[in-house]
């Protein structure tokens, strides 16, 4: 009885692995684009640094 249960469990696990394999394909839109950018410096405290009286 126990062996039969283990057999079923193994079968289900192998099936799950096949399903996982199916849905785990590479992300197609993961490329990046080379462009020159203009940026504000990092940080949300920028405003405080710029003019503490405003905050």
């Amino acid at each position, binding site marked *: 009885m126990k062996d039969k249960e283990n057999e079923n469990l193994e079968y289900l696990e192998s099936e799950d692995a096949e399903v*996982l394999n199916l849905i785990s394909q590479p992300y197609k839109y993961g490329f990046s684009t080379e462009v020159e950018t203009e940026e504000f410096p990092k940080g949300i405290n920028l405003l405080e640094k710029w003019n503490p009286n405003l905050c």
Partner: protein
Amino acid sequence: MLNFRLRGYKIWSKMQAPEWACLNYNKIDYNNILYYSVPKAIKKLDSLDEVDPNILETFEKLGIPLTEQKRLANVAVDAIFDSVSIGTTFREELSKVGVIFCPISEAIKEYPDLVKQYLGTVVPSGDNYFAALNSAVFSEGSFCYIPEGVTCPLELSTYFRINNEESGQFERTLIIADKNSHVSYLEGCTAPKYDKNQLHAAIVELVALENAEIKYSTVQNWYAGDNQGLGGVYNFVTKRGLCAGDSSKISWTQVETGSSITWKYPSCVLVGDSSIGEFYSVALTNNYQQADTGTKMLHVGKNTKSRIVSKGISAGSSKNTYRGKVQISSKASGSVNYSQCDSMLIGSRSQANTYPYIQVRNSTSKVEHEASTSKIEEEQLFYFLQRGIDFESAISLLISGFCKDVFSELPMEFALEADRLLSLKLEGSVG
């Protein structure tokens, strides 16, 4: 706008990040993020054809061609790249019927009265931690105004692309449907694969006046991180619609497949009598993705109706949570809600959680809630296989069947894409 931003910043700096969601993630260093990044070539352009060819090529590779000759028929697109709109198609055609569809930065300058009247009225700056953050730093997003009695002749769509590794995206979208008008809007989003997490904290506000209808669809396909959970977008979004007028209707449809962290509850405030709110959602998580998503339906007017259909699919070591609130006020007599939350588990390590909250404050309203949790059954697969349908097609059909109530709500041209996106692979596509 400066005062609006400063107010948002003041509120945010006094708030704590919410910890009630079923999400575990590293603390975000808000001082290590770029809040504004634009391609150098983007100044004031007269035509989309003047945009940097690299950027045009990017959108073409994403399936969103913007040039005059190749653009999508019947879909007006606003393309947003990091912190700036690259351009909006079909604006002239839309303006002929009085529809305004433009980047919100432009709306603030060109239509200040409309923006002032509605911005922050549905999602106030102090609504939550991420709404306050967005109010302080938001850059770009789309603005739509549909005048009285007009059915928008085209689908409206915004495509969000984060490109800069160091940058977050903090857009704000505002849609106003005047009396007896109708609009269907779709948003899509993708991002490059980076090992670092990127922050996306957006706000969407919808206002439907008397007898107006807004249909808002999302195909969310941000980078989800690798199979070890490295990288991916942290997606914290506040979306809310106000059914301000009698007999108005707001319908949210979302297909969520990307992001390493999703925190998102598109909601409806049903103030107008006999107004209707709908929420249709499919959320698929795999590997180490975590999604805590759902909706709120707040019934204020009489005879208001809401419908919630949520489908969650969890695979790998992912965590998928539905969190919903249905609140029926004492004045909302004769109101009706129906909620259906189904979860499907794939594998033995994934999690599905459901947290429905229901508050009813009058005795004439009716609330129904159904929920189920299931796995792909051996018998179901056997049924397909013994009829000569291969394993891959069988899984595809089973997942399509599970999600069909949601896919049928998407605009036709995107429903097929969403079906393909979910049924077989996570490679994905957005309209």
